[in-house]
């Protein structure tokens, strides 16, 4: 596992008395697409929020490639590295939110390029060129100077994907990227993610789109009650789930 892009081991997270993650471990290798499915409240989002450092782990360890984000103290608690470690770690992943979270006061192009310029200190011309190129790839040429509120939800989500890709991350996380979209807009966003998968972009996707997960993901994790109930090759888990809980969950979806 030398080519592990992200490695999470024995992760625990509680909110008050509610233990949301119970000893979760996962490894994503370069070029892999990992889908995470499971019922709401099962810990999927919290897992993603811990991986993206929007939440801190109580215990366990997190590393991106050769960079250890956390160490463990004598009591087994996770201790986060200093500001420079956190800053470096944040250059290694991108996150696409369910609710897009674009910056409404910035144009589409500025949404994609602003962090490149003022965080990664890329020269402005190079950043703008990269932004235009990514927007073209997302099928959004000609929308550069519009503001997010003038775009459809599907277009906004593709801008958000371009914004995350612009930072050239090692792994891209998706938190239910199509849950706020109607079926037609969902299709256009999933198409873009499929194209990224075809280019061997490393991705972790929390989703309720089962057929999409089966087709696009290499690996799949089914989470419920804060634990990984079942994991394996995506097509195996979805077509032939072993655990009763996974079977019950998947029976809610029409196989398509």
């Amino acid at each position, binding site marked *: 596992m030398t080519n592990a892009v992200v490695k999470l081991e024995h992760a625990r997270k509680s909110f008050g008395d509610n233990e949301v993650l119970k000893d979760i471990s996962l490894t994503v290798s370069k070029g892999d697409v990992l889908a995470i499915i499971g019922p709401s409240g099962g810990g999927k989002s919290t897992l993603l929020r811990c991986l*993206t*450092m*929007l939440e801190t782990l109580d215990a366990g360890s997190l590393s991106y490639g050769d960079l250890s984000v956390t160490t463990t103290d004598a009591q087994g608690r996770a201790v986060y590295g200093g500001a420079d470690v956190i*800053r470096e770690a*944040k*250059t290694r*992943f*991108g*996150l696409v*939110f369910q*609710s897009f*979270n*674009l*910056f*409404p*006061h910035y144009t589409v192009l500025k949404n994609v390029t*602003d*962090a490149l310029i*003022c*965080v*990664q200190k890329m020269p402005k011309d190079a950043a703008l060129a990269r932004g235009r190129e990514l927007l073209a790839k997302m099928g959004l040429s000609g929308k550069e100077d519009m*503001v*997010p*509120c003038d775009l459809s939800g599907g277009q906004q989500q593709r801008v958000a994907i371009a*914004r*995350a890709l612009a*930072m050239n991350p090692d792994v891209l996380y998706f938190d239910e990227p199509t849950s706020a979209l109607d079926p037609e807009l969902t299709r256009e966003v999933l198409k873009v993610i499929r194209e990224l998968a075809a280019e061997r972009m490393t991705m972790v996707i929390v989703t309720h789109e089962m057929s999409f997960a089966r087709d696009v993901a290499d690996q799949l994790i089914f989470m419920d009650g804060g634990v990984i109930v079942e994991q394996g090759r995506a097509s195996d888990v979805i077509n032939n789930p072993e655990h009763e809980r996974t079977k019950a969950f998947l029976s809610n979806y029409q196989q398509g």
Partner: protein
Amino acid sequence: MEFLDALLKGMSFDVMMGLLGNGLIMTSKIFIVTLIGSLPLGVVIALARMSKFKPLSWLAQLYISILRGTPLMLQLMAIMFGPYYLFGLQMGPDWKFMACYIGFILNYAAYFAEIYRSGIQSIPQGQYEAASVLGYTRAQTFMKIVLPQVIKRILPAMGNEIITLVKDTSLAFVLGIMEMFTQAKAIAASQVSMLPYVVAALIYWVCCLVIEFILNRVEKKLDYYHD
């Protein structure tokens, strides 16, 4: 102008306008100094109010509560006479101007702080999270992502306060400062005429119209997006 002169006892209309004009200069000074002082002070108080360090937050809440909960006129008098009655300090003849500026700044900062807070707290958490994941520092997140959106959201409420301030400047009369309303009152008394009040009212109104016009322009400028 003669029919206007006839409304005054002895004083010519031009002289009256000159006096009211002097008052307007003083009024404008109070207005501008108050804004220059209270707009940034409000940010400090709002940040203190939202601080996770509880004692600081409580202190800011107490400050806001007292400054909003007592009459501005009383606050002006407290600052004017407080140094003498509390500490026996003899303040110079210009102290009333300082007392006036300090009183207005402290009072308006309390109101501005609450408007800022409402604006800052209305920005969705997702904006902070998106900025965090992209690697923006806290300062960058505030200055580039949060603040521009806050300004758009609080503009109507700020407009309200700023227009109120135009008229509140007349409270400086309790300190014997010859701003426009004090001037109008003095002329009205000496000339036994309502004319100075009418003219003063018109001038206040025109000042507010100008401010409304400017605020509308800014609102239009920020109307290029909604969220």
